[in-house]
């Protein structure tokens, strides 16, 4: 995803002189293709995220569209007040890009896990929160965030994510993308975990359970119409995210359902729930959190019959 993002940004910067890229001394072997082509619009600000956001705001107040790049929660939490006051309060075109959000930096440990970032970012005023599900969505989301005036957050995986979309979908900020039709259960996934959700739907199909799959690349603003549509058709809605369910997609969907007149589906939220002290690779941590395809299929099948093991993993 990170390579797709940088390639897309290079293409966009070729056309649009307003595009700048700042990084917080991270992105080695990835950002060079931008910095070598556009050296006057690229700055490594050093290990200083607060200043990175402030400088980006100053550039944006002078007419630039600034992408700021770092990993996991670094460009979100260390500089949260700069994002809130300097960027969102002023409604500036600063786009925060977090690479390796979720669990891809697995063995680096909890300091490198971006699993509360959606919760934080979606509460900020004027902020558009986007977590593409595959490289195709990444390319389209990068262009869409550039075209959108105002703050944006692009939450990316790391590298090697499979391509899910065989052709470019009609990508619009704030709109869900339907990947599979099926009304026995509706799976809504955001971010790079989408691949596991699609595989889980395949496993369920083999058991005769027809699972619909929605990719929800935009979490703020949420496509509430799409959520309500599937919640009316299916008895169970399942959210899947590499993030804590609290404050993330699970919460966003729960808020939507709770505010809607019933009857509608029950909700199963699947996210990161185990202790931050568990050590392992991204794949291992997905398994431990019940977020790999096999566990997801199992949890969904159990939830459909009301079994207690559908509860969050501990």
């Amino acid at each position, binding site marked *: 995803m990170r390579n797709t993002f940088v390639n897309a940004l290079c293409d966009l910067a070729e056309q649009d002189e307003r595009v700048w890229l700042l990084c917080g001394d991270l992105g080695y072997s990835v950002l060079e293709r931008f910095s070598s082509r556009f050296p*006057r*619009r690229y*700055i490594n*600000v*050093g290990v*200083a995220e*607060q*200043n990175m*956001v*402030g*400088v*980006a*705001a*100053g*550039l*944006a*107040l*002078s*007419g*630039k569209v600034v992408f700021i790049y770092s990993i996991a929660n670094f460009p979100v939490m260390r500089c949260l*007040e*700069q994002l809130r*006051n*300097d960027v969102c*309060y*002023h409604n500036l075109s600063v786009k925060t890009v977090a690479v390796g959000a979720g669990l891809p930096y697995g063995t680096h440990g909890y300091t490198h896990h971006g699993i509360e970032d959606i919760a934080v970012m979606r509460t900020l005023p004027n902020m558009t929160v986007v977590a593409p599900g595959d490289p195709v969505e990444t390319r389209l989301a990068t262009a869409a965030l550039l075209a959108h005036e105002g703050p944006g957050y692009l939450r990316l995986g790391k590298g090697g994510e499979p391509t899910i979309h065989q052709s470019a979908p009609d990508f619009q900020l704030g709109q869900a993308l339907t990947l599979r039709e099926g009304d026995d259960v509706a799976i809504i996934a955001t971010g790079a975990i989408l691949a596991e959700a699609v595989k889980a739907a395949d496993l369920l199909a083999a058991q005769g359970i027809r699972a619909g799959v929605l990719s929800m690349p935009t979490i703020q603003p949420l496509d509430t119409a799409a959520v309500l549509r599937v919640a009316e058709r299916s008895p169970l809605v399942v959210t899947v995210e590499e993030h804590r369910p609290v404050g993330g997609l699970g919460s966003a969907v729960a808020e939507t359902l709770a505010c809607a007149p019933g009857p509608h589906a029950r909700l199963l939220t699947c996210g990161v729930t185990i202790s931050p002290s568990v050590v392992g690779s991204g794949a291992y941590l997905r398994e431990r959190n019940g977020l790999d395809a096999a566990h997801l299929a199992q949890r969904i099948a159990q939830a459909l019959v009301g079994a207690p093991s559908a509860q969050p993993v501990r």
Partner: protein
Amino acid sequence: MASVSKATQKKAGAETTTQRSTREFARDVRARALQMVHRASASHIGSSLSMTDLLAVLYGGGILRVDPARPDWPERDRFILSKGHAAAAGYATLAEAGFFPIEWLDTYCQDGSKLPGHLTRGVPGVELSTGSLGHGLPVGAGMALAARADGSPARVFVLLSDGELDEGSNWEAILFAAHHGLENLVAIVDYNKIQSFGSVAEVMRLDPLAEKWRAFGWACREIDGHDHAAIAEALSVVPHEPGKPTAIVAHTIKGKGVSFMEDQLAWHYKSPNDEQLAQALAELEQEKPQ
């Protein structure tokens, strides 16, 4: 393009005003700020009064190349009041300089007003909403960088408090501005030696402050922040050294201009009552040349 204060309007075409007119400007700003915090029962008057002479020379003395008739003029100088809590003097200065009607000042901190208690963008002449400390200098560095990239003559002036320098974000920006040789960036420290809980020396020592700026790669000069000639001399030609950003450590007195507020921590918080306001205004009146 000199700034257009009442004083400069009277002297059409003048690039700078006389020292007396910046004194008048400062006296008017002090009086208005006192009336504003009195009406609103607002705090931070001491912080407003300590920096008023700096603002008077910047706006009333023709240092800033701004035009109240065109607040969005792309090549204007940018001024950021990073110590946004000193909003009373900040707004009063902009009104005195002609950016918006003086009458707006009567609405300071009132329900439904355009003027909240910390300086806020959207008010003509305000470049950045501030209030939380440590934000102005990084944003100013970004503006200076943009101006240089665009070949714009715009310069960026950021006024910081001393207590604010406790924030690490400033030192990130100080490193950054020197590394990138932002000679169109000027940081002015209103060094009144008092922060929220007591003296700077007690709470978090900054001295030797000028040496810190120099060690970080800035050209730094110390001045008396109430001496208009010294302020004008320090700010009229920047950068002080080619290839370096400029820092001015302005030694000031919190509450300057009102005898019973000077150097008193309490006036970081208190608002003058009717008698105190009358006495303060009378003292400012006495300052006027006979």
